[in-house]
């Protein structure tokens, strides 16, 4: 038989012999309640202890980059929604930012403020649902997820009234945003932001000093800051190890330098720190949202000089990045002057953060693998693309 197109599909066996050393090979996924989609791990166990772990990717490979090279620049915008399907707004922003950098497009002030507001709302709903899923993986089946999704639905309502879709917003455009706020939107958003700390207080009361949660997460999956930096880990996972690196501060894209906020840092880099990092970041997001809503100016929503149809940027290459809820989300584009990008590459945060999974899991029990995987915060749409 000729070489099959899925020749690499079957991962090589982890052991030469299954009897050797009494290791037991377990295949977890792709259909598994806690793998956050169709992710598969081949785990070699000694008793309950993980000795080897090999991730198997590609069960959701949807040819995102190839399709991006075959469609126009604007045509890729709806596809970016489906990369990380929790955070369509930040994906849109990262892509729009890259193209704006490539073509040198100015963004009006109101649009920049709206982008900040929507990105922070996205961060809130991503982190809230992550906490729900993570607790669900730990065995708190149902209840925390229900609480988290109750809050998420309120934010999705705002997205829906703004863009017409709950999840796949497709809201940003090169040089601004697609449409202005509908009447009454800002009041609803303000009410939501004012009410959000109540949810956080309630949630933190339930989890922070919960004995089971502490036993399951503290000193589990500890990540050293050296390894994190060497492996290119970004986002809350990096900051949980105590590395002060937040692109909102470092790059200062958008209007983030205008807002006062702190970057929370952990020090152990274990699952508990990663979990609390999300809770603390949500509080900072609320602060940014309040400032942005106060300062939101009137004005045009999109740069009128941009021709969205038959959009042809000049020849060049560009890398645009933003601090997504999961980490550094970047788009690398090479333009040859035509209507389609010559090369379209996504730097997905959850894929890069997932690369150190084996280092985190070795020596822990198989039950901890799910907690560690949950604390990394992956979305398979972004990992496999």
């Amino acid at each position: 038989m000729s070489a099959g197109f899925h020749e690499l599909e079957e991962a090589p066996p982890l052991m030469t012999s299954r009897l050797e050393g009494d290791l037991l090979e377990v295949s977890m996924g792709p259909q598994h309640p806690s793998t956050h989609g169709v992710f598969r791990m081949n785990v070699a166990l000694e008793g309950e202890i993980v000795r080897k772990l090999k991730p198997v990717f590609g069960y959701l490979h949807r040819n995102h980059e190839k399709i991006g090279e075959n469609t126009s620049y604007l045509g890729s915008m709806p596809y970016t929604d489906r990369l990380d399907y929790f955070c369509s707004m930040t994906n849109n922003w990262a892509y729009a930012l890259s193209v704006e950098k490539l073509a040198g497009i100015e963004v009006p002030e109101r649009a920049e403020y709206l982008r900040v507001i929507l990105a922070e709302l996205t961060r809130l709903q991503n982190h809230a649902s992550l906490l729900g899923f993570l607790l669900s993986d730990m065995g708190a089946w149902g209840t925390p997820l229900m609480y988290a999704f109750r809050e998420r639905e309120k934010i999705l309502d705002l997205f829906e009234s703004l863009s017409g879709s709950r999840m796949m917003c497709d809201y940003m455009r090169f040089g601004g945003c697609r449409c202005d706020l509908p009447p009454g939107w800002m009041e609803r958003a303000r009410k939501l932001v004012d009410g959000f700390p109540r949810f956080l207080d309630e949630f933190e009361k339930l989890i922070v000093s919960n004995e089971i949660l502490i036993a399951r997460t503290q000193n589990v999956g500890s990540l050293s800051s050296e390894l994190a930096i060497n492996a290119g880990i970004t986002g809350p996972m990096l900051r949980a190890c105590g590395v002060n690196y937040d692109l909102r501060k470092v790059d200062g894209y958008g209007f983030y330098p205008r807002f006062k906020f702190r970057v929370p840092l952990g020090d152990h880099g274990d699952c508990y720190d990663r979990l609390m990092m999300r809770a603390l970041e949500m509080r900072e997001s609320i602060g940014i949202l309040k400032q942005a809503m106060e300062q939101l100016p009137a004005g045009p929503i999109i740069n009128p000089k941009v021709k969205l149809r038959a959009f042809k940027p000049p020849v060049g290459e560009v890398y645009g990045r933003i601090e997504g809820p999961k980490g550094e989300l970047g788009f690398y584009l090479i333009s040859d002057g035509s209507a389609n990008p010559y090369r379209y590459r996504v730097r997905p945060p959850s894929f890069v953060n997932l690369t150190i999974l084996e280092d985190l899991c070795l020596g822990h029990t198989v039950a901890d693998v799910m907690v560690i995987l949950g604390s990394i915060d992956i979305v398979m749409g972004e990992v496999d693309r």
Partner: protein
Amino acid sequence: MSGQVDEGLRSELQKQGIWVTSTQELYNWGRRNSIWPLQFGLACCAIEMIATAASRYDLARFGGEVFRPSPRQADLMIVAGTVTKKMAPQIVRLYNQMPDPKYVISMGACAISGGPFKQGYNVLKGIDRYIPVDVYIPGCPPRPEALLHAFMELQRKIDGQKLTGEKKAPFLDRKQPSEFPVPAFGAHDLEPPANPDVFRPPVVERT
């Protein structure tokens, strides 16, 4: 059989505290109100599936909140998301592992036809090429209400299934297959590219 009990007589008896029913009605009533879906998400639509089961939309009102991670305990497979060629064999295998009677909801554009990723080289152009689908939900992703509607449609379908006679439900017919061949990886594509026993696309006659 329900046809043999007069509706007027039945409601008259109900007033007297006597409830008359048939085995088929009782059986289908029980089945349709406790559909256990397979806990199995593929892509974006899975998040809407979770939202449907979560607090606001509350799938439990229709008896479908018991998501089972094991196919052996599931009645319904919700194919929620893009089916890639790498994933398709696993889906068919999961379907084969489910006990009869089993149902399939094809949720979202990708599961129906490949959706926005149809032009991709690695995306299966619809799960109905390999397994029979009962309800299709369009949308990218469909709203939770759409999934609830599909659930109600499925309940209606289960309610109408006959236990005996000429038109009895397919799962009671021993000649009907309940397992389908799992596609294998060939040189360029999945082999076979579609199961001809299942996949019957409409023929468009052009004049």
